[in-house]
């Protein structure tokens, strides 16, 4: 009886999956396919595909004078934002995991940056750091910390640093809440046992807490790498990647190529390069996590 049922059930799951697969196929898979196709095609300014040209688009992109800098920016952007927001988010979660008065309010406040549209968040920070009328200058002058307006963004690098800060600012809540959920699922018995064994605070942190919240930390880090790598609105709002590509990342660079310069082919090539980089990261992650799983079992 069970076997018969199994045979009947063979195609059933696929029927349940159909709506979801259709939705993703049309609006994600076909665009993916299109991007790959365009990256290998000659494309007119109007966007008409004029046949296969092999890797010429890639060659043009890779030999572009701005590309190495854009790649470097993307790397810095991703590493700095994900790294620092993970560190700060983790510390914040450890603090919020304590019992104290006003804990609920503190948690609610941490939600704010997560729930706000990036475009709005970036807009406010653009205003805050403005040299002429920015509110950071106003605040610091009124508090008497500085006596005349500071130029917070004297160089493109300074702009980029501010953009990283906004990126960190909006990414922290996700890390914090992921870690918090991990922390709250830890059985107190572990800590009691560690205390009985005479473990110090740092020993408990590194031998109990961190290993046990690692799954949550992994989820948040993997997702954040993808999101931050692909993040567009912050840089777009604050500098549009200018001046002269000095604050461009791959996504702002490809956006300009595609929609400002009419170079869809090269833009698609940048997309593919970005995807390949993420795939490489994913492969590294798979190898590491599969290796670990093998060890555990």
């Amino acid at each position, binding site marked *: 009886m069970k076997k018969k049922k199994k045979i009947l059930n063979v195609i059933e*799951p696929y029927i349940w999956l159909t709506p979801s697969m259709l939705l*993703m196929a049309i*609006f994600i898979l*076909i665009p993916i396919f299109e*991007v790959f196709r365009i990256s290998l095609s000659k494309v007119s300014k109007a966007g008409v595909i004029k046949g296969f040209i092999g890797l010429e688009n890639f060659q043009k992109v890779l030999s572009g004078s701005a590309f190495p800098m854009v790649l470097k920016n993307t790397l810095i952007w991703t590493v700095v934002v994900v790294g620092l927001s993970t560190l700060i988010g983790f510390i914040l979660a450890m*603090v919020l995991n304590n019992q104290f008065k006003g804990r609920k309010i503190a948690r609610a406040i941490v939600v704010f940056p997560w*729930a706000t549209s990036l475009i709005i968040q970036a807009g406010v920070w653009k205003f805050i750091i403005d040299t002429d009328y920015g509110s950071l200058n106003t605040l610091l002058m009124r508090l008497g910390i500085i006596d005349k307006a500071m130029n917070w963004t004297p160089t493109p690098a300074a702009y980029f640093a501010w953009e990283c800060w906004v990126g960190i600012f909006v990414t922290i809540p996700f890390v914090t*809440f992921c870690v918090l959920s991990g922390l709250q699922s830890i059985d107190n018995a572990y800590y009691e046992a560690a205390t009985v064994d005479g473990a110090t605070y740092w020993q408990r942190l590194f031998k109990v807490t961190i290993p046990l919240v690692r799954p949550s930390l992994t989820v948040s880090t993997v997702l954040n790498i993808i999101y931050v790598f692909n993040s567009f609105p912050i840089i777009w709002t604050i500098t549009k990647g200018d001046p002269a590509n000095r604050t461009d990342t791959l996504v702002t660079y490809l956006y300009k190529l595609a929609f400002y310069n009419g170079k869809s082919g090269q833009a698609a090539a940048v997309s593919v390069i970005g995807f390949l980089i993420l795939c490489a990261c994913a492969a590294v992650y798979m190898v590491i996590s599969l290796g670990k799983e093998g060890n555990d079992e």
Partner: protein
Amino acid sequence: MSKMKEEMIEKKAKTPKQKVLRVCLYVFILLMALIILYPYLVMFTTALKSRAEIYAAKGTVFPITWLWQNFAEVWSKAPLLRYFVNSAIVAGGSTLIAILCGIPAAYALARMKFKGQKFFLGLVIISQMFSPVVLLIGIYRVMSTLHMTDSLLGLVFINAAFNQAFAIWLLRGAFISISPDMEQAARIDGCNKMQAMVKVLLPMAAPGIVTTLIFIFINAWNEYTIALTLISSDLNKPLTVGITIFNGYNMIEWQYLFAASLFATIPVIIMFMCIEKHLVSGLASGGVKG
């Protein structure tokens, strides 16, 4: 109960060192709260200033004259109501589609074993790796073919598709955490699979489903890049793109930009606070379990 107990233990066991730590904790929390709330304070105070005050050589932290009417005027400075409705249509529509497609898929992944299960989950994760921005060129082509550029319907479908992964992830986690025994009992009572799912599983998974709904709604509500690229006529713009009207090339109308931004943000923050707890445990468990 247990919280009270913990607090009592805490009060009993206070050494001077712990007292110092406690003070440090509060200072840290206060500092964090100030930093996080600072941009919102800036938005609020700036929204209440006149343009002259904002661009004044020596600015003030708080408005000199509090122009509450800015919050009313902003509605006539741009078709803000229209933007709101557009955002609601896009967010509501994509949430509906994402959840209607996501529930059966998550159900199959949680309750059935079949060939290609891992493959499908892999596909879901890969779809996450392509953010819409990276695929914009491809998306633009597909939408042109479907005659859905500059249409809200197009935004609905794209947002639904790009939130599928989250929907499936969260819903699958919610379904797995519920024992299949109840559904089996319903099956024995003569329900078919569909009925068992709708009548037994879905009500039990309601918190997870609501969390997913709100999360997708917020994601779609806050989406900017696709809308920026696909929507060309002013009347089809959602809020995130629409409010940039105040962000002109020559002069930025900060007071209106921030007044509109606050209107766009506050409802979403409140919604988010309601689901925060469920969302996080859902995200964590959906990925780890099974």
